[in-house]
């Protein structure tokens, strides 16, 4: 399939290749606290979906549902036509986390290699050559070859994040889940990582769900936005969702979306979200 049709079909919403991620009437609640309800979401092959929202709005929880680590309270979730289940080979995952323990004594290539076959039993001596080939390719794809043999703990946050992306991609997944992969990166590296992921979506038809608090590096790249706030949500192209009207409605308090050049600044959302939530990039 060509990238143009994939993205066009994704934008048209539906009548294309069958979606890789499919949520229907999905509801997730912890006790009486509803994170989201009535969520219908299709993510098509090659589509880049940004998942936005204040702290505690249920973005990571959505990832966990897609990974099969947490059941929905009600509704259905499918990955590539099958109900989501733990350990799916079709999903690549970049978890939300801080930099790794600096004393951790594994090399970047080991981390990526574990993403390839770390869940298999045995020592894996027979698949060594294939593993090496895969790992080298994944490292090269994210430009991490140079520091692949250094201890992960000694690498910078940006280098570690690239390795994380390589680890998620080494198994050639259909769906890529990235939970705040831009955390602790400077602006230049935010761009690099975002573009890496966007290119993957374009060139391999990977469906990407990209959780982030940094809107601006991804805005030019995303096809649609899922914006979660306090149990409410909105799905649509950035131009429709990232407006003062839509966000004011979502947050239930006045929110200003200001465009400065090609950047967006969201102001006032901190009152409704209960948390600090001003997207501003230097």
């Amino acid at each position, binding site marked *: 399939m060509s990238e143009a049709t994939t993205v066009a079909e994704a934008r048209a919403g539906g009548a294309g290749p069958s979606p890789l991620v499919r949520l229907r009437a999905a509801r997730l609640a912890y006790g009486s606290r509803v994170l989201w309800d009535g969520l219908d979401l299709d993510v098509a092959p090659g589509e880049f979906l940004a998942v936005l929202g204040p702290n505690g709005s249920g973005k990571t929880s959505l990832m966990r549902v897609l*990974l099969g*680590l947490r059941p929905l309270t009600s509704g259905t979730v499918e990955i590539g036509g099958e109900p989501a289940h*733990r*350990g*799916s080979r079709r*999903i690549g*995952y970049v*978890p939300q*986390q801080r930099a790794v323990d600096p004393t*951790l*004594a*594994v*090399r970047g290539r*080991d*981390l990526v290699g*574990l*993403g390839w*076959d*770390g*869940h*298999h*039993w*045995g*020592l*894996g001596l027979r698949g060594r050559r294939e593993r090496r080939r895969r790992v080298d390719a994944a490292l090269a794809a994210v430009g991490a070859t140079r520091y692949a*043999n*250094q*201890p*992960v703990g000694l690498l910078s946050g940006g280098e570690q994040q690239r390795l994380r992306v390589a*680890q*998620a991609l080494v198994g050639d997944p259909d769906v890529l889940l990235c939970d705040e992969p831009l955390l602790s990166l400077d602006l230049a590296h935010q761009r690099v990582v975002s573009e890496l992921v966007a290119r993957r979506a374009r060139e391999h038809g990977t469906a990407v769900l990209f959780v982030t608090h940094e809107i601006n590096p991804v805005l030019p790249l995303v096809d649609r936005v899922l914006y979660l706030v306090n149990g409410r949500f909105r799905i649509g192209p950035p131009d429709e969702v990232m407006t003062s009207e839509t966000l004011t409605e979502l947050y239930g308090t006045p929110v200003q979306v200001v465009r400065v050049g090609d950047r967006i600044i969201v102001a006032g959302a901190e009152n409704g979200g209960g948390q600090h939530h001003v997207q501003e990039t230097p």
Partner: protein
Amino acid sequence: MTRFLDLSATLDLLGYDFVQHALLAAAVLGLVSGALAPLVVARQMSFAVHGTAELAFTGGAAALLLGWSVGAGALAGAVVAALLLGLLGQRDGERDSVIGVVLSFGLGLGVLLLWLYPGRAANKFSLLVGQIVGVDSTDLALLAGAALVVLVVLAVVYRPLLFSSVDPAVAVARGVPARALSPLFAVLVGVATALGVQTVGALLVLALMVTPGAAATRVTANPVLATVLAVVFAEVAAVGGILLSLAPGVPVSGFVTGISFLIYLACRGVAATRRRRVAAA
């Protein structure tokens, strides 16, 4: 001082069965603990190893009192300890205190059991600081069997175990049963610890279960190479420690821990010079 380097006395002693048993036991122990050590370090389980050793000591003391095989008693104690620690301390924050609680209780109980034991004092002491004459051929068979089981199980679970040790979040998402692997690894460590209690003693098991792993991971970040190095380090410490202790007739543990510590210092030195050279370049 010459006694320390008395080669002929050492060669003489090597002819004795009990010495050969001790060397074999040490070799087995070095292999098993070296193989486990890098994972023990990665999972930050030093304190758990110490706690497990204390309960292996308790088990050994109970066996001594009841007239059973000390090896079997130590093994039972260590496995019970490993299961207890694995089940009670699932949450990371809790693990530390649970180990402290269980460890002190086990040690106290062990001391009480030893006090009740009417036999020779040397036997009592050996459980804590090691005594090579403590290994007879039944013990040796038990050691070798247990070691084989540990190594086979470790080979089977190695990759998922490494995965969940260094990268738990992704490992769980990938379907690695991390929650079952933790107690399983604790039991493997427990068995290896029990083997150590009989040679180097409960107080010094760390010298073989932790130090070689800490030394190896200082000089390499390659997990396979780290495991090989840790095995070599543990073998040198265990077997070398016994060989050195033969002629002077002093307890083995001083030599085993001493060699282990020297290797660790050397590895730190290597890592430091390497860093300096990188920084200079």
